Structure formats: C-alpha cells, structure tokens
C-alpha cells in the first residue's frame, strides 16, 4: 500500500506538547543530522532501530507507523542521544511517552506484561523493585546467600521497608490509577529459575499476550523502519 501524506496528522506534535507538560520538547528543532543514531547502542545491535527516523515520523505526523513499530520498544533508555543531540531533544522521554500511546493503541503489551510482575510482586509488596530473588539462571549456583552476606556486612538480613511505607505506596498506586492499570494487564507469573520445568521455560521465552487489555484490542507489532537484522534474524 502506498503511504499517503494526506493521512498524516501534521499538527499532532504541536497539540501534544502542551498536554505532555514539558515531558516532550524541542522535536521540531530536529535537523535530521543522525548524530543520535550514530552513537546509539541499540542501533549498533539492531539495525532497523533508528531514533532519527522516529523523530521524523513524529514531527511529520505519521503516528501510525511510530506507534505500531517494534522499534519503539528497542530503545535502551541510555540517553546517549540526548547527550549527543545538538538541539537538546530528550528522546528518552519521547520513547517513554510514545510507548504509553502505543499501549493505548494495543501495541507492545507482550513486553509490558513481562515487566508488570516487577511492579506488583516486588515494588508494591516489598517496596523494592529488584528483590534478592535471583532471576538469572546462570548465576544461581555461584552466588552466595545474600542474607548471610548482608549480616556479615553489618546490615539487616533483609532490606527493611516499613509497613507504613508499603501502605503508603499502595495507596498512591491506587490513587494514581496504577493499580487498576496493572489489573488490566494481568501480568505473567514470574518464574523461579531454580525450579523451572521445561514447560515453564517455554512459556518464559514465548511471552503470552492478552487478546484484550480493558477495552483495547491488542495487536502484534511490525518492523516499520527496516529489516530487523541482528544475530537472531540473520538465519531466518
């Protein structure tokens, strides 16, 4: 199908800027110089990822292409593009906001689903996002017992977060709609790598995606900015 410029929402960015309250800015100043992509760690390993092209599509108003892309979800959030940018465009925030928009369109849920567990199981229950539970199967054997190491180091055997603090962040989560948002996602069970069965392992690799999230119907994403490339796709 031919791309039609009459479909583009060319004042999208102008309308978006005041709504986002300063989270997105300066995109209209983009020179398309490519300094961002030149230093990008994600672009170095996944050739179809290209921050310059995404900014271009955003300013032109080709919203459909940005939001339905896989590339939007390949950013490393390293901020190197912002550090390099001659026009001070903070692209990390664009990615962050655009991902929210993409989720509203039904894209990217397979990724968010995977992450939701960290928020629910760790952040809201314990007050810390990264727990002492080891999720990297390759280091389970080599690692010492954290609670013993903590005690030897003169710390409490477990990182303490008071009940009051946990009650407070739970209330904030409810107040700001984060809890209801997470309920919509459903989340995946975080697997225990030490006792993981082959069946579970399969599930772990193939992220299940809900067909609906609330009222939104979910879709699979597309490689909109070029051939996927990279090691994984080289053979396929």
């Amino acid at each position, binding site marked *: 199908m031919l791309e039609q410029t009459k479909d583009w929402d060319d004042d999208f960015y102008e309308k978006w800027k005041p709504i986002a309250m*300063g*989270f997105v800015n300066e995109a209209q100043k983009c020179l398309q110089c490519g300094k961002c992509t030149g230093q990008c760690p994600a672009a170095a390993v996944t050739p179809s990822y290209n921050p310059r092209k995404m900014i271009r599509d955003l300013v032109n108003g080709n919203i459909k292409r940005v939001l339905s892309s896989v590339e939007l979800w390949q*950013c490393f959030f390293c901020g190197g593009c912002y550090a390099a940018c001659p026009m001070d465009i903070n692209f990390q925030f664009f990615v962050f906001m655009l991902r929210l928009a993409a*989720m509203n369109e039904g894209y990217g849920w397979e990724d*968010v689903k995977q992450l*939701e567990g960290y928020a629910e199981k760790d952040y809201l229950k314990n007050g810390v996002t*990264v727990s002492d539970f080891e999720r990297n199967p390759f280091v389970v054997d080599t*690692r010492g017992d954290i609670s013993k190491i903590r005690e030897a180091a003169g710390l409490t055997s477990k990182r303490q977060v008071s009940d009051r603090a946990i009650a407070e962040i739970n209330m904030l989560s409810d107040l700001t709609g984060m809890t209801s948002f997470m309920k919509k996602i459903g989340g995946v069970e975080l697997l225990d790598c030490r006792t993981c069965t082959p069946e579970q392992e399969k599930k772990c690799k193939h992220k299940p995606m809900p067909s609906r999230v609330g009222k939104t119907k979910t879709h699979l994403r597309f490689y909109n900015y070029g051939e996927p490339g990279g090691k994984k796709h080289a053979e396929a």
Partner: protein
Amino acid sequence: MPRLDIVAQIPKPKQIFLFRSCVASNKYPGTEACGRETLQILGVEPVESDEQTCCGGFVTFANVAAPTASMPAVARNLSLAEEKGLDTCVLCNGCWTFLNEFGHFMNHNEEVKASVNMMMNMMGREYKGTSNVYHIAEMFYRLKDDIAKNVKRPLTGIKIATHYGCHYLAGGKYSAIDDAQMPSYLEELIELMGGTVVPYTANRECCGTGFTQIINGKDSSLEHTQLKLDSVKEADPDLLVVQCPYCHSQLDRVQQQLNYHNAGDYQTPVIHIAQLVGLALGVAVPKLAFAAHISGRERLEKVLDRVGR
C-alpha cells in the same frame, strides 16, 4: 574535566540522607554497607530510613506506571529527607536521574506540585522541593581531600578501568559534575587512592542493560554487553569500577552468562565506586561483601591480597 563550578556548589554536610538502592541492597550489599562506612569515615554521618522505598524509576520506565503515577512516589521519597532537613545521597545512577528529573519537573510545575501535595497530605507528608539529590560519586569527588588523608590500603599497582553509566552522564548533560562525553573524575579519584587507570575503547559505551531490554530484548542486550566486555578484556584491568548498581549487575552477571554459553572467557571483577573507596579507606573485608560478586572472584581475592586484608 570535572565542572568545578558545579562541584563547588555541593555542600560538605554533617549529615546526609543515604538513599538505599534496590540492586545495591539485594544483589550487592557491599555497596550499601560501604556507602554507609565510607561516608562515616569522611566525616558525613549517613541517616537512613526504613520508610524509604524504591525510587520508582523501574516501574515508570517499564511503562507499568504513567509519569503521573510515579510523581507522588518520588515526592514521597524526597520528602523523607526534607522532614529531616537533609540533602539526599544516592548510590545509583537511576535513582539520581529519576529523583532529579521528576523533582525538577514538580518544582517547575506548581499545578502538578499542588496535586501531588494533595496526595502527600493524605498521609501526613508534604513535598516542598528543598532537598538536593547528590550521587555518592559526586560526594566522593567533593570530599576527595578527606579521602586522600584517610587512605589505609593504597591501591598501588592495581589496574582499574572505569564505567560511568549513562543515566548519570547522559541524563545529567547539564547537571552532572563532569562532561558527558569525556568524564575524568573517577580516574582522578582512582589515582588519588594510588591505583593505575586503564583506558579502553568502549569506556563510554552503555553497559547494555537497556533498562528493560535485559528482560524484553535479551538478544540485543547481551550482544551489546559482549561488545563492551570484549573491549574491557583487551585492556585487562584488575578491577572494573562502576558507579551504578544496575550496570554492576549487568556487567558482573553477563560475564558468567557468556562464559556459560562458551562465548568467551570473561573474568573481570566489577565493583562499585563505594566499594573501591571503602577498600582504600580500610573498611573491614566482610563489609565489602565481595562474596556476593559473581565474576572474577579469584582475581578479586588477589587484589585483596595485594592491598592487604
């Protein structure tokens, strides 16, 4: 070159609110213990609180929480230091950039601040925006004269490579204490403690965690970390010093993972700057908690033997 004008603005307080980091607490406790011990040795009393939770950066950048949802969580954590009338000292680049960025945002949007404060009031707190957030590496650089005076175990002959971490330098393009593209304050600290700095090509490359890519895009994440580790291996340092527990976790654990896949033999110990300063200032060995480290444990022990236990 460090921006001395920004360094000069960092106060030398009697007390500071030490903000615990999730990864530092639960994966590398040595960072937390050393942060506490080193500050004490340098004459700054660390104040901690069990009320403090995760900064909220992970859930926000994992898009599980909208920015409006994480704003009150940031305000809550910052208000803990405000209540005590202290500045905040963080151990993690992620905490630094997230607390700074969102704190800055709230301070400049009265409307948002008012709405956040409404929620704060519900639990008897208030966010004023008076607490500054400093990274512990910034504090070390500010207190470098005290470090030089207190070195108990000089790092003579130890080859050390540095990794700064993106969220400090790139996120703090204008507010970090050093140039985003060519920082040198960690090198300065290392030389101050008697160590030898080892340069390598991929010094300013990202560690490869990619925030959520280590979970969602494992292939690209590992590929990038391998690029970085290859460059480190070529320079062959005794230690790789990081200033972010998240980078620490990635660079340390992925070595083991790559070794497991026969992708190479990577054995470079990775330690946090707080642990390195702790090592030089003579913090007791169990408090360095090297037992929690994964890669290059033998080399780490050798380093300990050389500087004295």
